[in-house]
């Protein structure tokens, strides 16, 4: 179907879908995103579900949102503020209206604006009537009743079930409004509800009814076109951080030739890595849902001892429980990949909200000197390569490695140029199979270059040996209380990790105009920093940016880079963790921009912060 109404061209749009937890907003957002991706826009998404439990229908804490930014050019963030809000009920309106840009568009489900819902949302009068939405462009749509009406001929569904299809009505309307292709969603409905054809039928009808409503209703005078973005050639898909991470782990298993063993305990927002890997049994992936995080990491370490790619995934409150195991892995010098999908804390904190405040924990959260390399992903799709890279380091250097993601990367998504599997680098290693000291096997005799020790797995004849958590003598690995040996081993472990700096790329600086000010970031602030820098530059100022993908060790030129700028700004969703490290290591008076709000930075606030520093 194509529209007959006037069409306006736009460069970019930020839409937020918002409704009750039960209203299917995440699904709606996902579908709209898929349509948009297939259409060829660049995009970035930000799902936002408040608490883990479905709160009572209509309540403020029960509101679930999904924001999507799409454009005809490459974009970096899901957008600071929506320009369009779809609000399925009063609570959704109340929670989200404050974020809308001035003059933005609101599409509301008028059917939900009854007294009970208004009251639950804490409205004293109906905002659709009391003038409080003046200044916005409001489209009142009777979404529920029109959906029920549209489905009255579908057999085998109750009117409650019919009403539940209203999100597809909304999706249809929005698809019309922005000229999204319908085929993908229609096919999706078919396959998703294959078991319940009557529901498939209902959703299909609702979807089409929504589209038709846009086309016919006088309330919608124009529709919009956002031309496809100029992306590099290749095959794309949309991918969220957790999916990319899952794929990266499976790829690492393939590229290393090591079977993947995941030990995990469910926790938001890391659970779906476990859930997705559980679907990968045909890749030889073993997923073990352990009794707790300690056992999860222990089992992964046990599997690593046996020659597997041992992985354990969690979020901060679970990672903290793995510390003792990671300490053991440090001294055993076995590969182990620990994934921390960071969320807001401390303690249980705000489980679904992002934060990047576990950096110091993963670096230092173990007794004694216990160095561990740290890799951090910066974008949802980037989780794929970050996972492979973390695995590479773990395997090559026989060391636990932390991989940091966060709730924003985990759930956010973006188009991904699917890599050519054949071009991914081999990360395989060799197990020890022969004695390395005449007839004897010295499990702690190191490779002189990497300082890695041999990995001799059970089942290898003649290399029987014992390892443990007590300090070990150099080379033999026997228990040793010798003071000088302990000092030596402590330094060897540190040197091994520090030496990885030679094996990772230099820190890249984006500095087109020779700026005085460097903005240094890490993790999921990548997009926001990039977008902010664009704005700053567009405003006529100069600024350089660099983004750390390795937090331990730092790329070898990091000191040089930070010292070569007059001013350094480190924006972080914490109180200054990377900043502390940079200051300590390089004695540079780096400033911070720190907000701990459980949500990603907005480009605008970073623009302001950078501008202020540049001008200072």
């Amino acid at each position: 179907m194509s529209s007959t109404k006037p069409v306006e061209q736009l460069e970019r749009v930020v839409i937020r879908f918002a409704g009750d937890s039960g209203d299917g907003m995440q699904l709606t957002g996902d579908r709209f995103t898929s349509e948009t991706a297939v259409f060829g826009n660049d995009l970035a998404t930000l799902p936002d579900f408040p608490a883990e439990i479905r709160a009572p229908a209509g309540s403020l804490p029960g509101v679930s949102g999904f924001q999507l930014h799409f454009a005809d050019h490459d974009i970096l963030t899901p957008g600071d503020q929506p320009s369009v809000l779809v609000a399925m009920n009063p609570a959704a309106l109340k929670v989200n209206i404050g974020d809308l840009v001035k003059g933005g568009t609101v599409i509301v489900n008028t059917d939900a604006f009854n007294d009970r819902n208004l009251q639950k949302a804490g409205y004293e009068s109906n905002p659709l009537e009391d003038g409080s939405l003046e200044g916005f462009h409001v489209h009142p749509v009777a979404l529920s009743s029109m959906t029920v009406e549209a489905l009255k001929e579908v057999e085998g569904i109750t009117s409650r079930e019919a009403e539940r299809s209203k999100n597809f009505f909304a999706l249809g309307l929005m698809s019309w409004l922005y000229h999204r292709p319908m085929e993908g969603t229609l096919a999706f409905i078919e396959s998703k509800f294959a078991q319940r054809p009557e529901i498939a039928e209902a959703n299909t009808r609702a979807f089409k009814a929504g589209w038709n409503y846009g086309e016919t209703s006088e309330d919608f005078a124009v529709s919009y076109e956002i031309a496809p973005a100029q992306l590099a050639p290749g095959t794309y898909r949309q991918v969220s951080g957790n999916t990319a991470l899952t794929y990266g782990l499976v790829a690492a298993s393939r590229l290393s030739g090591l079977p993947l063993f995941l030990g995990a305990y469910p926790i938001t927002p890391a659970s779906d890595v476990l859930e997705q890997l559980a679907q990968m049994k045909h890749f030889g992936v073993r997923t073990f849902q352990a009794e707790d995080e300690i056992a999860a990491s222990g089992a992964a370490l046990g599997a690593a001892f046996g020659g597997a790619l041992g992985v354990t995934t969690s979020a901060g409150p679970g990672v903290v429980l793995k510390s003792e195991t990671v300490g053991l892995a440090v001294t055993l010098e076995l590969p182990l990949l620990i994934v921390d999908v960071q969320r807001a804390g401390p303690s249980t904190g705000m489980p679904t909200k992002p934060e990047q405040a576990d950096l110091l924990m993963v670096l230092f959260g173990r007794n004694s000197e216990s160095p561990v390399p740290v890799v951090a992903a910066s974008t949802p799709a980037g989780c794929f390569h970050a996972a492979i890279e973390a695995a590479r380091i773990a395997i090559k250097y026989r060391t636990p490695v932390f991989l940091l993601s966060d709730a924003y990367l985990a759930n956010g998504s973006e188009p991904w140029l699917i890599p050519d599997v054949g071009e991914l680098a081999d990360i395989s290693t060799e197990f020890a199979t022969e004695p390395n000291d005449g007839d004897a096997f010295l499990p702690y005799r190191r490779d002189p270059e990497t300082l890695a020790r041999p990995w001799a797995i059970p089942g290898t004849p003649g290399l029987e040996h014992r390892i443990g958590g007590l300090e070990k003598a150099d080379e033999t690995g026997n228990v040793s209380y010798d003071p000088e040996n302990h000092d030596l081993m402590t330094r060897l472990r540190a040197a091994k990790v520090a030496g990885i700096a030679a094996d990772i790329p230099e820190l890249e600086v984006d500095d087109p105009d020779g700026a005085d000010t460097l903005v240094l970031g890490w993790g999921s602030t990548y997009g926001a920093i990039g977008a902010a820098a664009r704005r700053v530059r567009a405003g006529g100022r100069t600024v350089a940016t660099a983004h750390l993908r390795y937090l331990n060790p730092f790329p070898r030129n990091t000191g040089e880079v930070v010292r070569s700028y007059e001013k350094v700004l480190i924006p972080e969703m914490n109180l200054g963790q990377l900043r502390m490290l940079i200051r300590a290591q390089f004695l540079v008076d780096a400033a911070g921009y720190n907000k701990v709000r459980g949500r990603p930075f907005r480009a605008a606030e970073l623009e302001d912060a950078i501008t202020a520093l540049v001008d200072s």
Partner: protein
Amino acid sequence: MTADGNGNLVQLTAKDFKSDQEVRWCPGCGDYAILNVIQGFMPELGLTRERIVFVSGIGCAARFPYYMQTYGMHSIHGRAPAIATGLAVSRPDLSVWVVTGDGDALSIGGNHLIHALRRNVNLKILLFNNEIYGLTKGQYSPTSRIGKVTKSTPMGSLDYPFNPLSVAIGAEASFVARAIDTDKKGLTEVLGAAARHRGSAFVEILQNCNIYNDGAFDFVREDKANRIYLAHGERIRFGAESEKGVQQYPDGSLRVVDVDEAGENSLLVHDTAHAQASLAFALSRITFETHGAVPLGVFRALERPVYDDLMSEQLDRARDERGEGDLAALLHSGDTWTVG
């Protein structure tokens, strides 16, 4: 006889299982006896040394792996069952043994123990129970008796102790047994049964800590008349002259009776493989304090699907149904689009 890496048959002996590390337990410690029995038993496994792995936590008992010329890991306190689970599940070709103490297994490690047991992971778990924390020099443990005066309980312990076998049975263990450190024959038999059992095998070994809890088991370690050796399918009798037996009350509890008085036929018949664990549980409640005697041997040995096998089967089935995983196909799954 064991086939070595080249397929040659070799006869291993206890000596082949001794590592070059000096054994560092206190002189007189019951751990020495256990080490000897286990080294003597190992050839019976019929496996070459590289196929065997000992995993332990922390404690005196947990030093065990260092002394075995096999693969081994002396890990962290209480976590050996979890670590061993990862190893056993991902390497079904290995014979994985866990050595643990009463503190290691039942205090800090209690959760991993019960979960390994319920899952029926293919692990042999040997709990050296000396009713004390040996390595940290004499604090009471979860198996220490009420009133026990130790370094951390100067006025006597208040904690009602665990009965390790009851805990294991309550946790759905498929194999449960008990032996004594110095009882070479009994211990060897139990080890053999444990090794033959596919799945988790839990063995409590009464072990004397002559430094911090000397004589804790003298009533059964020294006095053989107090040992009730259990044998599948046989009536339960014991005593110097086999003059005593075990009978069941109508309420499910067990009592010790005089065989002559009660009549042989009234005695309970031991059944290690009953579908219901109730009998094994009732037997675990026979203790020196309550009944004046201690059952030894295999309490329960029930065949049940093994976790590691089940997991391997799912992997096979997944491959059968979906074909060997194809990475490129995975990356291209879902909606894709191509930019010219």
